[in-house]
């Protein structure tokens, strides 16, 4: 076992409704969607029109800038609707599943013919290439680039995150195949980060052909960006790639079976979930199909594809995001609380700070809602942000550099090393209620524009 990297800074959000290790539902897909908005700075070019018959793996749209990057249908059926928003921005491509399971068969390389070129070709054709993201910026990787290394986090610390050992328990062969394939794409090796405390009880450390790292600590220790910062930090001009572990399994299954297998086990969790548990479904599943699990009885709720910190609110008529294996539901906080800020106790409220008492009850779980708990102000407290960011970065200075659109400072202060999810906790604890992830998004978009 290589050295353990202990992270101290951070926060495990004590929110109610963690998913129990059981499958409570198996969804037979009806209408599923692929959303171009899941991919940062993607301009899609449509390849199908409404009414077209598609198989699993049929390209639906492509990246306009890099047309070989394809996005393919997660099910077989017909194109039900192409949903556009303002300025005709493409929001969703909805497919009505016929559940016949017709799939495009891909010609996967095996044995000696498994080289970088063939791997890239199959990944692009199958629509699995977008599983690979690049750092800096967290955008879809550029197939023409050879990255310094590939990083995978096998440690989920985000609030209510799906237990990776559980959801991937029957996919070890696929994971092994996946990391083998990914190993062809880089010379720097495939780095996988494990939870130092309980990796021995799982099976990820038995994967071969990978370099293991061991982390411990509260969220965001499981974020791949934080791990990269401690393993081999990204400097200007360098590129590394990252893949979510459950998408590595999807890549593995493609190379084992020759088809795009979009099934995934997702966690459905949160304070507004009746029966927090796991659901067997496919990519792009409709929230409507799992709505039996949500508790609509006690007022408005918010349904989030992803975690509470960085997920997207999709609503009851929304769909699961491409990179998500978690759906969180929580009550909306649209109520007024008399003298709430002045009440000395407020024992049902959680705070990272000691101006409340939640730190005295470390085991208590909270019924969190979406209330902002205060109005937006300028930056006042300066030291809270660093306490939840285990990286050698001065967060407030970076955010201010972004607001000032100062490219050189942004570079120097670490814009290449973070994406939104890494600073999500800074936004959570911010007493000034500043939208820090939006600031970081602006910064990244500015960098992409200026650096291209």
């Amino acid at each position, binding site marked *: 076992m290589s050295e353990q990297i202990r992270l101290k800074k951070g926060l495990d959000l004590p929110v109610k409704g963690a998913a129990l290790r059981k499958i409570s539902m198996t969804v037979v897909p009806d209408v599923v969607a692929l959303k171009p908005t899941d991919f940062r700075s993607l301009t899609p070019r449509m390849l199908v029109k409404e009414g077209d018959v598609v198989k699993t793996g049929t390209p639906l749209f492509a990246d306009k800038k890099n047309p070989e990057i394809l996005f393919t249908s997660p099910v077989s059926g017909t194109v039900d609707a192409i949903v556009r928003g303002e300025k005709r921005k493409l929001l969703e491509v909805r497919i009505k599943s016929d559940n016949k399971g017709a799939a495009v068969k891909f010609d996967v390389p095996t044995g000696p013919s498994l080289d970088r070129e063939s791997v890239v070709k199959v990944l692009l054709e199958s629509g699995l290439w977008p599983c690979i993201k690049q750092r800096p910026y967290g955008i879809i990787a550029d197939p023409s680039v050879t990255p310094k290394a590939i990083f995978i986090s096998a440690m989920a610390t985000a609030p209510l995150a799906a237990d990776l050992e559980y959801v991937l328990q029957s996919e070890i062969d696929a994971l092994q195949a996946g990391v083998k394939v990914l190993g062809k794409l880089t010379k720097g090796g495939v780095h996988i980060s494990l939870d130092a405390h309980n990796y021995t009880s799982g099976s990820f450390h038995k994967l071969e052909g990978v370099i293991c790292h061991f982390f411990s600590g509260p969220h965001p220790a499981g974020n791949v960006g934080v791990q990269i910062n401690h393993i081999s930090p990204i400097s200007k001009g360098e590129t590394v790639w990252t893949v979510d572990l459950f998408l590595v399994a999807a890549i593995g299954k493609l190379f084992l079976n020759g088809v795009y297998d979009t099934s995934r086990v997702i966690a459905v969790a949160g304070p507004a979930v009746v029966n927090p548990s796991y659901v067997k479904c496919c990519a792009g599943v409709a929230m409507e199909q799992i709505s039996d699990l949500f508790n609509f009885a006690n007022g408005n709720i918010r349904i989030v594809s992803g975690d509470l910190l960085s997920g997207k609110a999709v609503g009851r008529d929304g769909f699961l995001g491409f990179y998500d294996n978690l759906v969180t539901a929580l009550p909306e906080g*649209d109520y007024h609380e008399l003298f709430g800020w002045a009440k000395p106790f407020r024992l049902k409220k959680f705070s990272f700070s000691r*101006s409340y008492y939640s730190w005295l009850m470390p085991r208590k779980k909270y019924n969190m809602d*979406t209330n902002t708990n*205060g109005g937006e102000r300028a930056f006042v*407290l300066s030291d809270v942000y660093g306490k939840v960011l285990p990286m050698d970065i001065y967060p407030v200075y970076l955010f201010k550099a972004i607001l000032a659109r100062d490219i050189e400072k942004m570079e120097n202060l670490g814009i290449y090393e973070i994406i939104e999810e890494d600073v999500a906790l800074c936004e959570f604890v911010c007493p000034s209620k500043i939208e820090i992830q939006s600031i970081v998004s602006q910064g990244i978009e500015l960098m992409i524009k200026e650096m291209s």
Partner: protein
Amino acid sequence: MSKLRKLTDKIKPTFSKGGKLSFLHSTFEAFESFLFVPDRVTSKGVHVRDSMDIKRVMTVVMIALVPSLLFGIYNIGYQHSLAANADMGFWAMVWYGFLKILPLYLVSYIVGLGIEFITAQIKGHEVSEGYLVTGLIIPLIIPVTTPLWMLALAVAFAVIIGKEIFGGTGMNIWNPALLARAFLFFAYPSHMSGDQVWVAGVDGFSGATPLAQTSEGLSSLHYSVSDMFFGFIPGSVGETSTLAILLGAVVLIYTGIGSWKIMFSTVAGALVMGLIANLAAPSPDCALAIPAWYHLIMGGFAFGAVFMATDPVTSAQTESGKWIYGFLIGVLAVIIRLFNPGYPEGMMLAILLMNTFAPLIDHIVVGRNIKRRLKRAKTV
């Protein structure tokens, strides 16, 4: 839902866009959010938010100030009874002090919050809570005899020049409360220093502060250490009792809202400089020979170190910068006290000076971080 909520909802449209009184929307918003935590929900980014907000932060600071305020009220009466040779009971002293300080608070809050509300209205912002703390501090750091019109001018100066022209709370360079005091000190020095200003209600009574006495040499000091620590001495209203200030420090450190690093390093700086002065003292009865730790319990040092130096907006923002910033405040405060015969209190100027240099300290600290990160790139 409560009646109050119903009433608020009923009058809300009048103040909202398009309503008759819509020009008062910031004012309405301030009162509404004072009464109720708003029903606003997260829109992008995180879906849940910590329960702490700036209102809570400011409330904690105000709670931390309460011991100093209460003792200050009592001490106004106590000093008066000593000076007037009146035998007043405890409650009579408290009542006397209360009557003396009440007008100062009325002026401080009416002028200060008035300006805050008007500015928020003009800019269309929400009213910031910052002045609640500033307004509580200002009467604590001036002599109780300060004329009200001077206080009004000082408050206006501090809020407008010290804060609003920079963009409001969070953007200011200098601590607004200290700026008010500095304004008074430089504009009306005769009302802010000397021996005559510290005791209320007895004309011409000379009640020198310990600081003024020690500037003439240690043997001129007529107060015991315990009086100085507990605060039974003349001085600005809230600064005299080190004990009450320490209670406030406990609250600030416990909640993490005041930086213990700044408090600690400020004390360390004062002690180091005090010891150096002791070593350099030509005779055992000159100002330089005051035991270093006396500086901690005399004058405004403790109050400044706990409540003013730690102001999160105007102090150094980086963790290592805080050590340097605090240490230099301590050093400078003692230097000014010992080497400036005209004005024995150095804390105000030391903090304002370091407020000015805090961005420079941070710039250096962040610059080192950038260099370290660049170096790291070359080694990998």
